[in-house]
Every structure is written in structure tokens, then in C-alpha cells.
């Protein structure tokens, strides 16, 4: 006999290559339109669609086993995607396993960049949209709200969010260990290439207010400065004005050293009590490596940043077992609470069911 179930189907970065994920991706309008279509699917009591660059997932409460397949079929038709190909990459979990997956995704345990927290916001947004449209009910409301609580617990009880795992963010984190807040840190970006731009943006996203760009081509420096809301500096003045900056990001393609020891020494003589953080992301290197010996000067090159990112990632991976254990325990407890509700016979599709008081509740804030 077919019974009700809670399910998750979809495709994630684990099994689905980026070329396929591109074809499966849903934009906001597409998500809304598909949701309206799914709302009329017989036997689908409640559902939520989570669509990010690394996953497209459908969480639902179904009256029978075949409803999840119908959801997958409707999605494939909507995207003009071959169902047989979709089946090759498809994630398909039921009941307790689906709940565990939900907690793991919300906690960042299932993310490509392990422990990242952006997914938590994306999940909350997806849930809030579904809730506002009346597509969730008592089961999914409880499941998502409990999953958000469990995700917070995973993050606080393990170290999966500790340490940055991208080179640009590692540089920003390092700046934090030197200066504390970045609000009053003055940053000089030498080089107007992509790597430097990424790092500069990472600094800005953490509150760095004062950014100056210098490049051998002043026009390019001015263009980038305009894009970033920064100011431009003639490249030739970099040594003379070095003392004005606290953080220097070097990412030029210059074949030789562009910041010699003498220049850094002279700058430090003018600002001896302020630390100077030098980030050399260039290859060949832009900064004389011997400046690392100077008092109050902290120099990190590309290898240093990459090694720290690797160490942080390894540390996060070591914490996943602990995180998955917590997620499993929470999923088990949650399944015991909602199993009875999930297995009751279905009455009407999600679009025809009135909202419950649970559905009207506001999701917990971050």
C-alpha cells in the first residue's frame, strides 16, 4: 500500500556537473511559475523549491510514493530536460533521510564551500516565499523551522564555519587579526587585474571604507576605482605614499619587485606604531620577501594564503562528522514528531488548502 512521505528530490553539485546545473537552474520568475504549476499536482500536500547555483531541490509532503516522481517529471517538462538524464543525477531521499538532508543543507554541511553560511539565507528565503504563497503547511513549517534551529546548533557546536577557505577571504580575515575592525584601515590596491579586484571587493564587503587603486595604466586604475567607489593613485607615487596605507594588496603582472625593502623601511619610519599588512598575490612576486623581517610588517604571499585556506578547509572537513551526527540526531527527533502527520491521507492539493496558523508564522530571524 502506498503511504504518505516527506521527500526531497533534485540535483546538487555533488553528482551534477556545472554544465547540467546550468540547464537545470531556475530564475526567480521561473521558480514562481513552476511553483504555481506544482501547486495543482494531486497528492502534493506541501512543497518548497530551493534553487541556488549549486542545487535545485524540491522539498515536499506527498500523499503517496509516486508524487515525488511526478514533481521531477513536471520540472523536467518545464525545463525541457530529458527525464532519463535527470534520473542519472537525481537526488531522491525520503522521510528521516530527507529531513537530515534538509538540516545538513541549512547548516552548510552539504555546500560546495563547506560551512558557508549564504545557503542558510537562501533556504530561509525559499521557505518564506513558499510560505507566503501558501505552499507550506504544518509539516514543512515545522520541518524548516526545526531545521533552521538545528543548523544554528551545528554551527555553534562545531567549527565548520571557522576560518576562511578562499584566498581573498583569508586575506581579509588576516587583516582582522592585525587591525581588528577594518573601518579605519586604509587599503592600497596595486594592479587592476581580476585577482586584486576580488580581494578589494572582499575587503569592502567586510566594511573597509578607504580604498585606493594604482596601476601601471592610470586609465585602468581609474576605471576600476570608479567601479569600486575608490580613488586612484598614479603608479609612480606608490613608494612615496606607502606610509599612508595600512594594507597593501599587490597583484600586478610586473616582472620585477615593485615594492623594495627600502621603500617599506622608509614608510615604516614614518608610521612606526601602525602595523603594515602586505599581501603579495602576484607571480612573480611584487614585494621584496625580506620586508617580512621588519618590525610591525606582516607579509603574506599567494602560497601563504592558499596554505591557510587549505588548512581551514581541512579543519572544517574534520568537523563534518560531528555536524552530521548532530543533524542526524535532530532529524530523527523531528521525524518522530511529524511521522504521524506525514502519513495521514491527503485531502487536496497545496493550492486549495487553507493556510494553517503555523504557515502564517514568521520564520525565525538569523
Amino acid at each position, binding site marked *: 500500500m502506498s503511504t504518505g512521505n516527506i521527500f526531497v528530490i533534485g540535483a546538487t553539485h555533488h553528482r551534477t556537473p556545472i554544465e547540467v546545473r546550468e540547464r537545470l537552474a531556475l530564475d526567480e520568475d521561473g521558480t514562481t511559475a513552476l511553483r504555481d504549476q506544482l501547486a495543482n499536482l494531486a497528492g502534493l500536500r506541501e512543497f518548497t523549491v530551493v534553487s541556488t547555483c549549486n542545487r535545485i531541490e524540491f522539498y515536499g509532503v506527498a500523499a503517496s510514493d509516486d508524487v515525488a516522481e511526478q514533481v521531477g517529471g513536471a520540472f523536467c517538462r518545464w525545463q525541457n530536460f530529458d527525464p532519463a538524464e535527470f534520473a542519472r543525477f537525481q537526488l531522491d531521499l525520503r522521510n528521516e533521510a530527507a529531513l537530515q538532508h534538509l538540516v545538513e543543507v541549512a547548516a552548510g554541511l552539504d555546500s560546495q564551500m563547506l560551512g558557508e553560511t549564504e545557503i542558510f539565507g537562501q533556504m530561509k528565503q525559499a521557505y518564506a516565499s513558499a510560505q507566503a504563497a501558501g505552499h507550506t503547511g504544518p509539516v514543512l513549517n515545522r520541518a524548516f523551522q526545526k531545521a533552521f534551529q538545528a543548523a544554528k546548533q551545528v554551527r555553534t557546536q562545531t567549527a565548520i564555519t571557522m576560518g576562511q577557505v578562499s584566498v581573498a577571504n583569508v586575506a581579509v580575515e588576516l587583516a582582522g587579526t592585525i587591525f581588528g575592525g577594518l573601518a579605519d584601515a586604509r587599503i592600497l590596491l596595486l594592479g587592476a587585474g581580476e585577482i586584486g579586484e576580488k580581494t578589494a571587493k572582499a575587503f569592502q564587503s567586510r566594511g573597509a571604507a578607504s580604498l585606493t587603486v594604482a596601476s601601471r595604466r592610470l586609465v585602468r586604475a581609474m576605471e576600476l576605482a570608479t567601479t569600486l567607489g575608490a580613488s586612484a593613485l598614479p603608479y609612480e607615487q606608490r613608494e612615496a605614499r606607502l606610509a599612508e596605507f595600512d594594507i597593501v594588496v599587490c597583484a600586478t603582472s610586473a616582472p620585477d619587485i615593485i615594492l623594495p625593502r627600502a621603500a617599506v623601511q622608509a614608510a615604516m619610519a614614518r608610521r612606526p606604531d601602525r602595523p603594515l599588512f602586505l599581501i603579495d598575490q602576484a607571480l612573480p612576486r611584487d614585494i621584496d620577501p625580506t620586508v617580512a623581517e621588519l618590525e610591525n610588517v606582516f607579509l603574506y604571499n599567494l602560497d601563504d594564503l592558499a*596554505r591557510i585556506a587549505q588548512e581551514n578547509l581541512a579543519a572544517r572537513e574534520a568537523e563534518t562528522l560531528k555536524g552530521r551526527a548532530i543533524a542526524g540526531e535532530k532529524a530523527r527527533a523531528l521525524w518522530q514528531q511529524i511521522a504521524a502527520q506525514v502519513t495521514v491521507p491527503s485531502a487536496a492539493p497545496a493550492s486549495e488548502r487553507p493556510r494553517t496558523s503555523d504557515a502564517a508564522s514568521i520564520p525565525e530571524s538569523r
Partner: protein
Amino acid sequence: MTLPFTDRTWLWLAAALYLAGFILGSIALFKRGRPAGAATYALILLGYLAQLAGLGLRGRAVGGCPLGNPFELYQFTAWSAITLYLVVGATFRLSLLGYFTACLASTVTLISLLFPSWDAGQRVRIFGHNPWIELHAALAVFSYGVFALLALTSLMFLLRHFSLKSKRLGGWFSFLPAIRDLDHMGVRLLATGTAILGFAVSVGAAHWARPETVVNLEKFVVTVAVAGAAFVLLLLRLRGVLLARRFAVACLILYAAALLSLVTVGPGRGRVPPPAAPTAR
């Protein structure tokens, strides 16, 4: 209000609580890889209250600030450092500072308790009935507590400096505050300690200048030397001569000198009043 137990029992309890804070912090740091911030803070707070009760009983028994022998001096220094930590630690969220403070407080208080001779017999009332000289002594020892906290932030600065220069940032190094924050904290603590000690010496000098007072020369020289060293250190830092790592090392040396000077700065006043009982209920 009558408190149960003797003053020394309360002080043993305080030392045990500080030690528990240190042990708990060590377990959290080395086994779980994160500081036991709130738990350490709570244990230190309880220890502080126990120490306050012990020193209060002692003070009531001797009729003044309990600074009459090396035992009391070390106890009072540790208590001063904890007083500051409870303010600074809560304000600046320096989680590892609690761990280091618990380590320092348990060491100083336990050592002072483990040497009964430091608190034995012939305790003298050092102040007579002069409240000014009592203020001088209390402020001077309190400033040593400030220097204790300065030593801890300097030690944390050196550890952070090592981690940044050697590029080892994981593990418990990640819980150290930013190096610039530690440097600023060091300057503020040194300025505070120097100001308090300077004021204490001024108050004492006003008393020593009176013709009927006999001044213990050794004590006078040592106290002025510690105050002078602190002042010179602050001046060198503010003028940019002594910076970063060298400043932190100098602060550690200053605290060590201050701590050692307590051995010489004993109950050395001219007029010796009748002895008081060392233990109170």
C-alpha cells in the same frame, strides 16, 4: 554580617575557583579547540567574590587594608588584577584573557597560600592610624594588579605576533585578539598603572616628608624605581622609541620587577603598633 569559615578558608576557595577556571579553560582550548569564555568568566567571578570575602574578613580583623605581609600583598595584587579583568574582559570580549588571568590568579594566590611563613606570626599594622598612608599602600598594590593585566595582554601580544610572523593562525591562536587591539590595550593599561602608582607615591611622599616619620629607604627606592620604570616605559612608547614586540617584552619585565619588589616592600613603617591576629572569623 558574620561570614562562615576563616579568612584563609575563603582565600583557599578563591584559589581553587581560579584554578578550576584555568583547568576548564585548558580543557576547552586543547581538547575542544575553543575557549570556555562564559564558564571561565563565571568561575573567576565566583573566585573573586570568595577572595573579597577572605580579604574583607582579614581587613576587618586588622582594622585596615590587609597589606601587612607578603601573603596579603600577593593576594591583594591578584585581587586587583581580577577586578580589572572583570571590567576589561567583559567590555572587550577578550576571551583568552580570562584564561590567562585565571592562570595568573591561581598561581599567585596558591603560591602565597602554600608558604605559611609569609603569613605567620608577628604581623604588623603598617599604617598606624593614618588613612593617607593606607591609601598610598592600597593604590600602589592596586597598580601592581594593573601591571599584572598589562603583563597578560603583553604575553598575548607576543603570541599573536609569533602567530602572524610564523603564519600559524589556526588552533587556539585564532582566539587571540587583533594585534593592534592588544597594543592599544597595553598602552592604556600602562598609562593607568603608571598614573595610579604615581598618585600612590605622591600620597606616600606627602607622609614621608613629615619630620616624625622614619622612612624605610629600601622600600622607598624600590617603589620609586618601579614607578620611574613604568613612567619611562610609557614615555618611550608614546614617543615611538619602544614599539611592538620590544614594548611587550619590556612590559613583562616591568611586571616581573614589580612582583619581585613586593618581597622588599614589606611592612616597613617607622612606628610599629601592637601586633594583630593574622586569622579572623
